């Protein structure tokens, strides 16, 4: 059960949040131009790696804001938290 530093509210218990999967997957601006394979790539393919991963999180039982998080899935260490639209930190 981790502590998450919501960029709007500060440090809160994990139980207040929900995870929205891999971050920085942008919805294609022109879906109709895409082939089935390209659309499937956007729709279904997620990395879910063991190690440092960029994730979307929502402060569901708090400010309800979405934000991004860099988390090491192997030990749950959170390396960074940043707002939607902000650039991911370079490591």
């Amino acid at each position, binding site marked *: *059960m*981790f*502590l998450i530093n919501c960029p709007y509210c500060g440090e809160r*218990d*994990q139980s207040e949040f929900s995870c*929205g999967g891999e971050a920085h997957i*942008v*919805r*294609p601006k*022109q*879906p*109709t131009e*895409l082939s*089935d394979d390209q*659309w*499937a790539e956007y*729709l279904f393919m997620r990395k879910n790696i063991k190690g440092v991963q960029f994730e*979307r999180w*929502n402060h*569901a039982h708090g400010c*309800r*804001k*979405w934000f991004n998080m860099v988390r090491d899935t192997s*030990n*749950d260490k959170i390396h960074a938290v940043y707002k*939607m*639209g902000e650039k991911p930190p370079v490591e």
Partner: protein
Amino acid sequence: MTKYRVNKTKHVDQTKTVSFNFDGKSYHGFDGDTLASALLSNGVHLVGRSFKYHRPRGIMSSGSEEPNAICQINEDTDLTEPNVRATEIELYEGLKSSSQNCWPSVNFDIGGINNFISPFIPAGFYYKTFMWPKSFWKKIYEPLIRWSAGLGKSPTKPDPELYDHKHVHCDVLIIGGGISGIIASKIAAKNNLKTILIEDKNILGGSTIFQKNENYKINDKYSSEWIDEEIAELKKLDNLTIKTRTSLAAYHSYNYLLAKENISDHLPLDKRNGDIRQRLWKIRADKVIVATGAIERPLVFNNNDRPGIMLANSVKKYLDFYGVSCGFNNVIFTNNDSAYETAVSFKEKGISVEIIDIRKKSNSKIVKNAEKLGVKIYWNSTIVNTFGHRKINSIEIMNLSEDGSNVVGDKNRINCDCLAVSGGWTPMVHMHTQSGGKLDFRENDQIFIPTEIDKNHINVGSCNGDFELEEIINNTNKKVKNFLKVSETEFDNTSVLNSKELDKRNIWLLPNYISEGKCKSFIDFQNDSTAKDIKLALREGFKSIEHVKRYTTTGMATDQGKLSNMHALGIIADTAGVKMGTLGITTFRPPFTPLTFGSIVGRSVGKFFDIIRKTSIHEWHIQNNAKFENVGQWKRPWYYPINDESLHDAVQRESKAARDSAGILDASTLGKIDIQGTDASEFLNRVYTNTWSKLGIGKCRYGLMLNEDGMVYDDGVTTRLGENHYLMTTTTGGAANVLSKLEDYLQTEWPELDVYLTSVTDHYSTASICGPNSKKILTKIFPDKDFSDDAFPHMSYQNAKIDKISCRIMRISFTGELSYEINIESKYGKSLWEKCIEVGKEFKITPYGTETMHLLRAEKGFIIVGQDTDGTMTPIDLQMDWIVSKKKYDFIGKRSLYRSDTIRENRKQLVGLLTDDPNEVLEEGAQIVSDMKKKPIEMIGHVTSSYFSPNLNKSIALAVVKNGKKMSGQKLIVPMENKNINVTVSESVFLDKENKRINA
């Protein structure tokens, strides 16, 4: 005093007799005893039967690692509990306990026959044997296994006791109140840190509290005296909270820990007063110091499981702490020095003891001490067999060969009534690994020790591999100072005297002259797995420790292998010829000791289990005999029986009334989302499949929302209240998810849109009135309003007032009837509803519930998302092509509507079904087939909604059927358990195909 109670100690009050019952017999113990110590004081060793072979088993330890003494307590009461360790339960007046896993009695056990056929029960026996023949499984194997392998009985009645949860935060949490935990707590609390110390026993002090031996002194005092003084001082510290009877269950990441406090389990049943029984502490600690100590290892030799064979330090604890001698003719079997303390304790009390030591010699102080007291020591020897059925009565020993791989010389038989074994010590690294910590293998004493990586937690004392008093005190002091950034402590100059262990020898599986296959050398006592099982698993090709563990079930019992894991690993390493450190170790998972369900759920039981949402009209529904249905968290009226009307009869009556005159439904639970902003129209365009930009102000429109994968997600009517203002309705169950999904898109994909969403579900109550007389009723409620079709057409909305209270009237319909929904601020919901009922009386307005609503909409072929759809249905599958805009460039899910899979012809599609016998009502969920002859029979779909329609006077159903669109008029079969029902595929709209009733 019984003859086994040989010693007076301050921990057991021998003036206070406590009577208790075990296996139907009455005994006496004293205040301060555990059930185990009280039984031993009465000479009772045999307390259970083993899981697989039903071998007699006795109390083996004095703590949570106990594999054998597992009891059912207070049977025949609501408070009965299985799997209670006799070594952990504090004795109280009237305690009733019984052995588990033995029938008809612990002394005569029918399952014991397994013991004689045991050559046939090797590792994986259950997997192999009970596979065949298949037909035997249900009738023979499963009942047999369940009957003979049961681990206690669960209570049959609701738990009458209270449980509690408590959240706490602290600077430092110390787990374990032994010597190192006490030192750490004192340093932390004295340095102004908010400290919590938890200890699972009822007193602090660990095993030091009964260590009174010349060879172990701290500041010139016996270590037991020194620790007593430390504990007394500890209790005076302001910053320290001491929680005894509190065991750590789980250590999660970010120093989040769960601990279970036993509040009343040690009290007699009549003194519990309905107070809280257990409290689950949810602790968030800035820093954690793990001081959980070590547990003694058994030794693995032939027939090492008889009652009377116990761990050496536990034998010492029974003697020095509880005053109970486990035997009068004791033998100690050891590979290390610590068991010599047990020998010295015995000898000092004049009790006979001999030692068998697998080491070749030792000249440490404690060994010399024992020798000086006249203890006979058999060096370089091992036990090859033990005897005695219900309790050990003798052993057979032999000498070990030079390299320890074999036995040599003659057998020597020694009589004994208690065999205390010690195979060394295993640090309790469970907490460290649960928190994500890694382990290192230390060759010289064959243990896994923590490697510290997390800067917010450390391990101190013997759980860290420090076993000797001097290193415990000095290393704990040093480590804690460093961890808490303290420069000096009172422990800096502690003088410690202790006997140092000089010689070590470890043999995981002791050799024998008897062939391996004929030895019963137990590793996991609770699951009855032996060294032979492990070797068999290896021969059969299992390599990974995790696989061997599951195949042999070693370490998988309720003790989670606290005593067995190391030996299993050691034997695997020896057999495979690899280094033990390279094998890894099985994962320790929470809880460390079993938790009660009560402590897990806390107060979230009964009506607190989940939030119950009621509409403001709820009281009226109750007064009018409504039966309720749970829809999500909502209580919705299901139907309103008159007198003892059945569901069917009530629904037939309600449905007819709604179509013939007027019906009224509480629709307050529908999700309502207020949408505002200059881009609101564009937003709706993107989230619904149809077009919204052209919807006039004051108009309503039905919308279908898809997931990005093209599947129907939700539906509802949205009303345009103003230029930049909409009110969206969602399904009752989908409201929260829809809001979250829309927020997600707004915040992450379309942040450029000026749109604001607010959940207003609870703000408004909704009375939905339908039927040919609904217009008349509305006219009576709102006499100033023009309800003509021209002034107030279908799919439009108007503001109105009842007295001075504003409300919104939407003319929309989910039944196909002329229908109005009146929305009013929630607090006026009941008044509005009562007014509708009052005014509607002359039209026999009939309240109807969800069941009738479902029937009415099914007559019109309207879908219910979640009933007729299941997350695999596109709008095209639902034959709702009309709602999918061809013109819009994009909306959520659009691209997925022409993926190769979604345009497939033979997808399941929504159709109507009519039974050939109009009185036959299909079962929802029933499978549909077209060809009964071709085997295997292909299931081509299933029934999603089915009712008897009183308005059509026949049975109707909706179903999803492969290629259903093209099957109109085709005959299909719905096979049921005892008959096949013939059906015909029809249109999904059964009533009023021309939509005339909407303007009736």
